[in-house]
């Protein structure tokens, strides 16, 4: 027996819009039944990547397979297996929620009896059955999001794409969407894009960090965090408002052997605390040498979080970009 195909295989995908290189050769695979996040700032190329994987737009070069089906040559097979919730809520604003949903069910070829039953159940699940004859414009942003989500589920897709599912939602609505995604894990492979670290950290099995059209890191949230450990970030808390003065002092501590500053990235967070990085823990002695013990409250190590990982990796890739 051949092993089941990966839910997604993307190989060296590129896409240009005129002079803008939206994707510069992105590759990754997604295991069936997992939640995979594409994490990146605005303009990173997340939506472009999803449009290509969902057959809306063609890559310039590269290949991709959804459950083994080629996105370029087997579009109908791919489309039968996917559901997508796009970044903005797209509805037919002249039709009721009910008719928006039935239209999509018809396009998937479901028999009337079956889809009416299914839509009713899904609407009840998201507490919107009573609003089924409303127009989309009469629903709140969070409600519209829920309708978009169930619209993508009517045909029981095997692979579900969510483009920034919670951007612009209030915390309450966001929590609801998170809960829905967590429940969906059992039935579908989920690919979501986000620029919220917290979201990627909480929901995903694996994360692809995307920056300026390039994959700059991939792994489980834990692996990505470990990649930065031993965390080389420290926090210095002072009893006096001298953070800026000490930042200047620490900036001038030079390693006598290499002539480079011992401390990188010294940032006064406020008057009383500053954050800095150093590659070698033994350098911390230098800090203590330069700080008046009576000013010092605490010197501690900061745990890496996904945001640090992301910032440090994207900074590195941006610097390389500029250098080349």
């Amino acid at each position, binding site marked *: 027996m051949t092993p089941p195909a990966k839910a997604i295989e993307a190989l060296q995908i590129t896409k240009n819009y005129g002079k803008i290189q939206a994707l510069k050769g992105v590759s990754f695979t997604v295991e069936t039944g997992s939640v995979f996040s594409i994490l990146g700032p605005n303009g990173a190329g997340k939506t472009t990547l999803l449009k290509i994987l*969902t*057959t*809306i737009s*063609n890559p310039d070069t590269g290949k991709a397979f959804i459950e083994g089906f080629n996105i370029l040559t087997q579009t*109908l097979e791919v*489309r*039968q297996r*996917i559901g*997508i919730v*796009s970044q*903005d809520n*797209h*509805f*037919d*604003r*002249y*039709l009721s929620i009910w*008719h928006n949903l039935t*239209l*999509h069910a*018809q*396009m*998937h*070829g479901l028999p009337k009896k079956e889809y009416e039953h299914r839509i009713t159940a899904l609407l009840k699940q998201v507490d919107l059955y009573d609003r089924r004859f409303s127009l989309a414009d009469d629903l709140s942003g969070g409600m519209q999001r829920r309708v978009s989500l169930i619209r993508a589920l009517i045909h029981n897709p095997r692979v579900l794409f969510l483009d920034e599912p919670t951007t612009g939602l209030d915390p309450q609505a966001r929590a609801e969407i998170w809960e829905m995604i967590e429940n969906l894990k059992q039935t579908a492979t989920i690919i979501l894009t986000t620029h919220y670290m917290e979201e990627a950290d909480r929901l995903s099995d694996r994360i692809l960090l995307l920056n300026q059209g390039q994959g700059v890191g991939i792994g489980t949230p834990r692996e990505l965090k470990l990649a930065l450990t031993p965390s080389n970030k420290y926090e210095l808390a002072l009893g006096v408002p001298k953070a800026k003065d000490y930042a200047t002092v620490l900036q001038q501590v030079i390693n006598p052997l290499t002539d480079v500053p011992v401390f990188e990235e010294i940032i006064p967070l406020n008057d009383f605390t500053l954050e800095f990085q150093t590659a070698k823990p033994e350098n911390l002695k230098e800090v203590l040498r330069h700080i008046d013990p009576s000013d010092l409250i605490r010197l501690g190590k900061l745990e890496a979080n996904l945001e640090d990982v992301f910032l440090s990796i994207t900074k590195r890739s941006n610097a390389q970009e500029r250098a080349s």
Partner: protein
Amino acid sequence: MLNFKQGIFPLYQKVLRQESQSWIAETLTTLAVPLSFFLAFGLGLRGYISNVNGVPYLVFLAPGLISLTIMLEAYRTGAWGLWLDRWYQKMINEYRIKPITTSDIIIGEILGGFTVALFKGAIVTLVLLILAPVSVHWKYLGPYLFYMFPGSILFTCIGTMVGTMFRKPDQIAQIQTIVITPLLYLGGLFFPIQAFPASILPIITWLPTTALFDGGREALLSGHLTIQYSLILWLSAGLSFWAATLLFNRKLSE
């Protein structure tokens, strides 16, 4: 391969549903243009124009007003429908991830526009029947529709092409004013085309709108069809259908 059940029909049904959402406003909008002309030309000028081509002016004018409504509505439904779905509501992208083809989508939209246009023509016909001393020879309805079918396909297709190409809503109105309206008014809607100077008459007779208005009137009043008009209309309907489908498929695969 076309998919009627999953692609064409659901989209066709959607266009009709959209239209029926605000049917009172739609009906009033539909009636506004032909009734204004009817009042201005038919009643206002009645004393000055007695018979045209052997029939009272009102009788001469009425078939053209019905055809005018059908063509304007075909253009409007096609253009705004596509504009809404492609640029405003962005629904086209939602349809495209369904297991259907872009041809299914555009054909559904075209058939929808075509049906809406014919339906609105029927409404205007009813209203004119009540207002004017026109008696319809029902047996001539067949020949008349033989022209109106391809005509409304032609104008729906022109509309869908405009709605597919132009991102800004004012452009749709501009095309209507600059291209569609002159084409419609030149086709013998208000006066017999023989009134045109002999130098431009040959051009006029080959306009599809002449086939619609001049030909349509003759068909409705006497049941008479000509080969030239039939050919012009059915060929341009076929051509525009092919062009609209091609353009849509092209634009969406960019």
